[in-house]
């Protein structure tokens, strides 16, 4: 019975009252409300007009420079940098939301540093980082000076001397590298003092009220929810704190992993207090977070690296997903189809986010989600270290290695870490391939929801009509897709620079993703607090999930490498040459 209660099932026919009584719809409304408020705040009261002027001026400079020289000049890059500095989240609304949704910060030895940083500490950190920045800045200035000299020499020849042009291009590339290093070093000199305790209390009250209202509309007790929610929130905060520790982060153990782990330790030793259980609304938190995640699933991103990227991320991935699922069913004979598909999606698409979306779409049990994410975390940590080492050892080109890692390592942060470890080009290719693959979660969630509704959950020999499909379809997936399509359209219409400044660096980073992050952290804490360790262990019996992951990932590694080689070196070598 305990197991059954973990499955979300829409019984019977749809009613109008479902719109304000059912979890799926309430998740959509809450997600859309956050999206709407963010959109209104940024687009009606934000800096769009000012940005348009600045982008226009930078575009003019870039157009003039492009017509003048056969390479990207220093002025062109400076104009690009100016556009990159435009962030709507720097507006008053962005600062307000950012302040009130703060998570515990990073720390090394003292966990209290995650909550409070004094002025003295901030000053000491900045002073420590300053010499490195000054050194990096001096290098960058010298590189700029050399680039200027070379560019002037090339300009003196009317940009017609190939040798001078190549020399200028190389010097400008050196300057860009030094400029980036200087920028990275500068970030470490901007530490500010903080005290997150009051904002965390305020945020807890706000979340308790909005989710409590939803729970009340679902016909449950508001007070019981609020009482229990305090514990769920505290576990989430502690999870953020533990995940913020430097070593923990380096091994990929973030707030999500700590939320499940800490919650499970509490539940299976001290025991989760009965009064806290009404607040363990795993599905409600996850579905709301997923609707918000839809705003970050932009379909126009898939062309970022041209056709090779689409083949590596959007052709290989679905093949691996489907083959791994079939392998699990036909060869391993996995008893749980939901666990089978969640591991398949988690391993082939993009780890945690794909696991969350797929698990919610097929109504997997929370233990299955926990197990899938656990497997992903372990293999991500291993692959992040082993893959760059192997690629370096065998002398594989950076672009190929980057594409390989981007298509196979689960978490985006780990992909970027492995790419950066290998080299700059590897980072650029790996991170972009992963981004393209991330977008696939929208399609994956929709297809899995459809397949489950029409095939897996269908009674044998019974036809499924359109109405029944509608009744059983997890509606929050529609909210997720609507948000995704809406943001893709807006992003395309705004153009890439304005889209980045207003949507990515405004509505998303200064609004929806701040809440999405918290909602997933709450859901993982709730999963942990309501998970029976013995139930979880049952799913792992026989080691089938591990075998499935290992076999699927092995297939993924082979197919991704083959496709990356064919696309980047045989079919589109000109793209590889440009990178």
């Amino acid at each position, binding site marked *: 019975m305990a197991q059954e209660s973990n499955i979300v099932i829409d019984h019977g026919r749809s009613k109008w009252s479902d719109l304000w009584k059912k979890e799926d719809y309430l998740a959509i409304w809450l997600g859309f409300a956050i999206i709407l408020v963010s959109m209104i705040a940024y687009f009606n009261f934000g800096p769009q007009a000012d940005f348009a002027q600045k982008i226009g001026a930078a575009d003019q400079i870039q157009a003039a420079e492009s017509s003048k020289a056969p390479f990207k000049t220093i002025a062109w890059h400076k104009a690009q940098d100016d556009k990159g500095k435009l962030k709507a989240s720097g507006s008053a609304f962005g600062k307000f939301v950012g302040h009130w949704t703060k998570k515990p910060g990073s720390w090394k030895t003292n966990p209290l540093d995650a909550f409070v940083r004094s002025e003295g500490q901030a000053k000491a950190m900045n002073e420590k980082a300053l010499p490195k920045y000054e050194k990096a800045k001096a290098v960058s200035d010298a590189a700029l000076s050399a680039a200027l000299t070379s560019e002037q020499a090339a300009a003196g020849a009317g940009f017609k001397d190939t040798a001078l042009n190549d020399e200028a291009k190389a010097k400008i590339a050196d300057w860009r590298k030094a400029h980036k290093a200087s920028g990275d070093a500068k970030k470490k000199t901007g530490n500010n003092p903080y005290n997150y305790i009051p904002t965390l209390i305020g945020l807890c009250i706000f979340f308790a009220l909005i989710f409590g209202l939803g729970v009340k509309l679902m016909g449950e007790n508001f007070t019981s929810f609020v009482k229990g929610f305090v514990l769920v929130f505290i576990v989430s905060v502690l999870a953020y704190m533990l995940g913020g520790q430097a070593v*923990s982060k380096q091994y990929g153990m973030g707030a999500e992993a700590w939320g499940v782990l800490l919650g499970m330790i509490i539940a299976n030793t001290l025991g989760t207090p009965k009064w806290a259980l009404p607040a363990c609304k795993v599905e409600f938190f996850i579905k709301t977070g997923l609707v918000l995640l839809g705003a970050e699933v932009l379909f126009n991103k898939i062309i970022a690296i041209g056709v090779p990227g689409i083949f590596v991320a959007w052709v290989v991935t679905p093949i691996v997903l489907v083959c791994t699922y079939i392998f699990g069913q036909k060869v391993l004979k996995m008893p749980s189809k939901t666990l089978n598909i969640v591991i398949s999606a988690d391993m082939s698409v993009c780890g945690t986010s794909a696991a969350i979306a797929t698990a919610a779409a097929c109504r997997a049990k929370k233990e299955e989600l926990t197990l899938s994410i656990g497997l992903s975390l372990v293999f991500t940590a291993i692959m992040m270290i082993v893959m760059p080492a192997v690629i370096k050892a065998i002398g594989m080109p950076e672009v190929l290695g980057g594409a390989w890692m981007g298509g196979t390592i689960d978490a985006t942060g780990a992909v970027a870490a492995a790419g950066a470890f290998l080299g700059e080009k590897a980072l650029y290719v790996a991170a972009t391939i992963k981004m393209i693959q*991330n977008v696939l979660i929208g399609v994956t969630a929709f297809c899995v929801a459809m397949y489950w509704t029409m095939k897996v959950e269908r009674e044998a020999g019974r036809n499924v009509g359109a109405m029944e499909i509608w009744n059983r379809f997890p509606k929050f997936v529609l909210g997720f897709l609507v948000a995704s399509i809406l943001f893709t359209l807006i992003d395309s219409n705004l153009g890439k620079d304005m889209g980045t400044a207003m949507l990515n660096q405004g509505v998303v980073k200064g609004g929806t993703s701040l809440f999405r992050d918290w909602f997933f952290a709450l859901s993982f804490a709730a999963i942990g607090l309501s998970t029976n*360790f013995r139930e979880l*262990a049952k799913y792992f019996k026989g080691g089938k999930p591990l075998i499935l992951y290992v076999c699927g990932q092995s297939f993924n590694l082979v197919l991704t490498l083959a496709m990356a080689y064919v696309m980047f070196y045989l079919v589109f070598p000109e793209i590889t040459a440009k990178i």
Partner: protein
Amino acid sequence: MGMSLLNQAGNIFPGFLQGPDIMAKKSLIRRLAAFVFVLGVTFAVIYGLFPWMTHSFDPLTRMSQSLNETGIDPSRYYYTDVEQVRESEQYLRGVLDQ
């Protein structure tokens, strides 16, 4: 109580992580002891074993140095959470003239 690492119930901490139903029947002292023990083991692994591994094995040391320099957080799972993805996209759009 079995001494194997994984007992019949699939429990890696026999006597400690027996599920909320069984643990609820035990005394508060016993439950607190279990909590402290399991949390202690977890912390020892993450904050003791992991740093030791990082300092002891060269590839891990170099990865740790690289992460400190770049500021990349490997625990972030979605592309919008990772600043380097935006930089990479910008670079590729630039060189591919998109």
